[in-house]
């Protein structure tokens, strides 16, 4: 029987799960409850007497769970530390969400922008789409130009 504690942050809330397990059988301890489980088959688990299909994909601390037809995203917190992913949100970095071509830039450095205002018009997969301001602020730097081919995640603009 092994025992381990997993810490998650889910929609801003911290959740700790303790897993006691031996050969696919065991007990989950969470929020004061104890729930028995059995791994019945690959991707098929019985929790508290009821079977569920599930799929899990991990990428670093981020975890995607498919469960009963819906996909959820969880972020794991390492013991004693804050997760890296949690600190990214609502930054002023405008990055390319996917590879493509910059068609147009609708603001200039120094402009004041409102939340959700379109900043960069991209073309990907033969369709135009807008990158919008994640928050209100001022454009401090523009790192791309029309016609440029950019990679996913490439920094295109900064807002403060």
């Amino acid at each position, binding site marked *: 029987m092994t025992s381990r504690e997993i810490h998650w942050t889910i929609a801003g809330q911290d959740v700790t*799960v303790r*897993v006691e397990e031996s050969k696919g059988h065991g007990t989950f301890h969470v929020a004061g409850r104890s729930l028995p489980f059995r791994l019945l088959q*690959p991707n098929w688990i019985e929790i508290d007497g009821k079977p569920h299909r599930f799929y899990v*994909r991990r990428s670093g601390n981020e975890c*995607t769970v498919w469960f009963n037809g819906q996909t959820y995203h969880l972020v794991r917190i390492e013991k004693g530390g804050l997760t890296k992913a949690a600190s990214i949100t609502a930054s002023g970095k405008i990055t390319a*969400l996917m590879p493509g071509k910059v068609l147009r830039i609708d603001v200039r450095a120094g402009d004041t922008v409102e939340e959700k205002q379109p900043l960069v018009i991209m073309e990907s997969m033969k369709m135009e789409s807008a990158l919008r301001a994640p928050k209100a602020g001022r454009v401090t730097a523009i790192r791309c130009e029309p016609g440029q081919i950019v990679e996913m995640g490439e920094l295109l603009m900064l807002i403060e």
Partner: protein
Amino acid sequence: MIRKVLIANRGEIAIRISLTLREMGIQTAAVFTEPDEHSPHLRAADEIQRIHSYLDSQEIVRTAKECSADAIHPGYGFLSESPTLAAACEQAGVIFIGPESDTLRTMGDKLESKGVMQKAGIPTVPSWHGSPPAAEYPVLVKAVGGGGGKGMRLVETAANLADAMASASREAASAFGDERVFLEKYIRQPRHIEFQILGDSHGNYIHVFERECSIQRRHQKIIEETPSTALTPDLRARMGAAAVAAAKAVSYRGAGTVEFILDPAGDFYFLEMNTRIQVEHPVTEMTTGLDFIREQVRIAEGGKLSYRQSDLHQIGHSIECRIYAEVPEEEFRPATGTVETFEPPAGPGIRLDSGVAQGSVVSYHFDPILAKLIVSAPSREAAIERMKRALRDFVLLGVRNNIEFLYRVISTEDFAAGKLDTGFLDRHPQVFSTSETIPIEAILAASLSITPHPADSSRATFPGVWTSGSWRNS
């Protein structure tokens, strides 16, 4: 007799075409460009040919000649409605599985085709080349050469006209190589109703009933069904007769689709004609038993239609959902990635036309359609229930997609009631909301997957649990 066909396409439609051709005893050659080197559509064919572009008519015809194909099937999109490819085929003595190049030229020009239909007595939507009278707003900007919502913009007031036309023109140039756009009256709460037609080279024309394609995003269909809840037997007969008249007006050869706009008053207008196999053809196949690829080949060989109008019946109800690599909650932006888990639903009345498989890489080079999930059932109510079950059972991880969004759309009361029009999504903002709380069991399942050390004993016992390997739910 056609003995070998080069399929000038990729993805799910290339696979679907190849399957029927192989069943007919016809050899198939698939083509691919560099990003498609490992695509599933290649495995469906008897031989594979590398090309530089899916859009180069000359290269396609040359490749067909080189590998001794006697015909080319263009699928949909790419060169499927290109008069240039059809003409190049006619010159090279290769059979083009589709209409004559003249028909493609006429119907590909939205303005000319409108004129032909007006002459044939088929109602059309009012349109303009320059700025329309103020009372006619809102208007639609549309590409002369295009389809599929590309190069299309809704303009509410005259002030936004210039910008919209410029943007549409740019998109049209990039997508179709033709920057011309025009303006059309915008019908409020329109339904998109189209009729499947077939014509042979002996002057026979039939329609194979309607498809309702009113659920659209970015002016592109995402859910299609047949029959339509909007059509009475009388209206179906009148629209079907108009569709057949449209086919006759251009001596149409092959499988095609006549698209109509139906307004809330029950008046319908010719919208355009799609001169190719349609993305949503499976819903018609599932309710009529036809195989449109088989019909296309027979017609291209010079054969007569296998059916008279009175031979055709529809049974049950069929719905198609297009599975796209996109994020509906973020303005439907396209998504890329690797398909890490692919466990499609199965069961009676379910058909999956997929262009991807486990391990497929979805890149930004092509249209973001991944697969089409089609269900048929005895009634519309049962078909909706079946589609909901199928979407809930569909596991596709690694590439963000619209499966859960489609589930929310099809679960609305208005969809169940058949209250559809092309503005459906705008009127139902709740389908964009993913606010549901995560079930505790999902957190627990995720926790179990956190392996404390690589030599974990349960890993050996259940090898598939972490990777969703080869186990499949039948």
